[in-house]
């Protein structure tokens, strides 16, 4: 088992009388992506704020890199990177100067900036003022700033929200590379496709409570109660068949006659699981 970077144990947060997080448990290891998946107001951002020392929990414990979230001080920020919707850039400064400022603060050699800009795909915009960047480019600059000091843990709060599909795909590619390099990534999203594609484990969060936790495959299979197959034959006809000895016979005979164009199992998606468990839409 690889090193544990984040452990969350019975974590709760209450504002006035209302719980926004209730008895949350999760673990994130080195080289993994953990997704907190839920609609707006589910408690995803609150979790990130607690884990990064910006909010205190009401009860329970959480440790980031072995440090209790109640005892976090600014030194932790030399080992973690944070990208949230409240991350800002200095608009009057160029892309390079934005990173240079944080490189000086985080004691990162300035020679590391250009390779990072190339990796993030912003090198050609390095002399552009941040105010002239598109939303996707600004998000990449924020990501670059969070990666500048090669953090062990990266917190991402809805990193692709509102971005065009190609920029989102580019960010997914970068996140996979970072994971493969050994970085632990805590990702919140309401995009189930993104979660299923990127995350080793996901927690489905609804009104502050984790309603399901596991790998995306485990969760989907758990709710795959009515097992179905979707078959398209070479003559163009489509069939949806329930699993049964009869269906097995039909599929077997189509196979023998080389009539099958495509054959799919029909497990539920994370979105349909979420809908089934909570009765709420994700988006």
């Amino acid at each position, binding site marked *: 088992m690889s090193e544990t970077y984040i452990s969350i144990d019975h974590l709760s947060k209450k504002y006035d009388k209302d719980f926004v997080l209730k008895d949350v448990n999760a673990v994130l290891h080195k080289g993994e992506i953990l997704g907190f998946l839920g609609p707006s107001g589910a408690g995803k951002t609150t979790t990130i704020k607690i884990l990064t020392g910006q909010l205190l929990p009401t009860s329970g414990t959480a440790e980031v890199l072995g440090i209790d979230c109640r005892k976090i001080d*600014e030194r932790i*920020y030399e080992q973690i990177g944070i990208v949230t919707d409240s991350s800002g850039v200095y608009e009057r400064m160029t892309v390079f100067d934005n990173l240079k400022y944080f490189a000086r603060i985080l004691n990162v050699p300035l020679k590391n900036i250009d390779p990072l800009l190339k990796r993030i795909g912003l090198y050609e915009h390095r002399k552009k003022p941040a105010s002239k960047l598109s939303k996707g480019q600004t998000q990449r600059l924020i990501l670059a700033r969070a990666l500048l000091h090669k953090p062990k843990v990266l917190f991402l709060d809805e990193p692709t929200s509102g971005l065009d599909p190609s920029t989102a795909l580019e960010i997914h590619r970068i996140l996979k590379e970072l994971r493969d390099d050994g970085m632990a990534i805590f990702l919140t999203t309401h995009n189930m496709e993104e979660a299923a594609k990127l995350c080793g484990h996901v927690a489905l969060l609804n009104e502050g409570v984790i309603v399901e936790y596991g790998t995306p495959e485990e969760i989907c299979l758990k709710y795959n109660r009515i097992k179905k197959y979707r078959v398209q034959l070479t003559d163009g006809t489509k069939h949806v068949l329930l699993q049964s000895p009869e269906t097995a016979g039909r599929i077997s005979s189509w196979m023998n006659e080389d009539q099958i164009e495509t054959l799919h199992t029909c497990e539920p998606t994370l979105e349909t699981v979420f809908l089934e468990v909570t009765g709420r839409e994700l988006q």
Partner: protein
Amino acid sequence: MNIKPVHLRKLAAIIDVKGRALFSKNFIIMPVFSLGFTFLMQIIYEKASGGMAAMNAYALAMGMLMNVSMMGFYCTAASLAEEKEKNTLRTLMTSSVNGLEFFLGSLIPIVLMTEAVNVLCVFIVHMTMSPMQWAAYLAVTTAASVIASVIGMLLGIFSKNQVTASTLTTPVVLVFMMVPMFTGFSETLQKISMFFFTGIAFDAIANISNGLPAVDVKGIAVLAAEFIFSLILFLFLYRRNGFER
């Protein structure tokens, strides 16, 4: 109270960026306006008095008041408010910068620029001072700049954006600037002014030009008390709210 260490590397980076921001169009108007105001006062009083040295000192005192108020109160509050508005403050605070580093990094460039303008004002009004008078002038105006900046930081804590900063700062600027400016018209204002750090600094310039000690013991006590009070209030509010409510 747990005092956080100040890393010179981080402090230098913040001072550099904050210092450059003071030359942006949002802020540079303040020192330029103060210099222009001093120049205007110099012309008006020179014409009115026929070139009396005391009037030069009066013009300098007016310019210094304008400068300390606009730079100290307004620029500090607006600078903090801008960081909040653009979400860069939170980014800084989650990039290993502590509150003390941000506080000092924000204050130092403003105090330096305020002092640079205060020095230029002396040349604008053609006032000649001995090295001792210069030392007294710099000491008193620096104290006033620091106090104004700490109060500006206090106002910044309550401002979520630059518009709010402007709204909150205006009455404070008016009170601290206008009361000493109009002491000549009202004895009551003169009495009140003696309890304002801006009033002490205003009188100090007249004393310096007359060859008297810049500030008496009471004046030093007022400066010290207002510095300590504003700092304690700032620390209290900072501990409750941080830089953001």
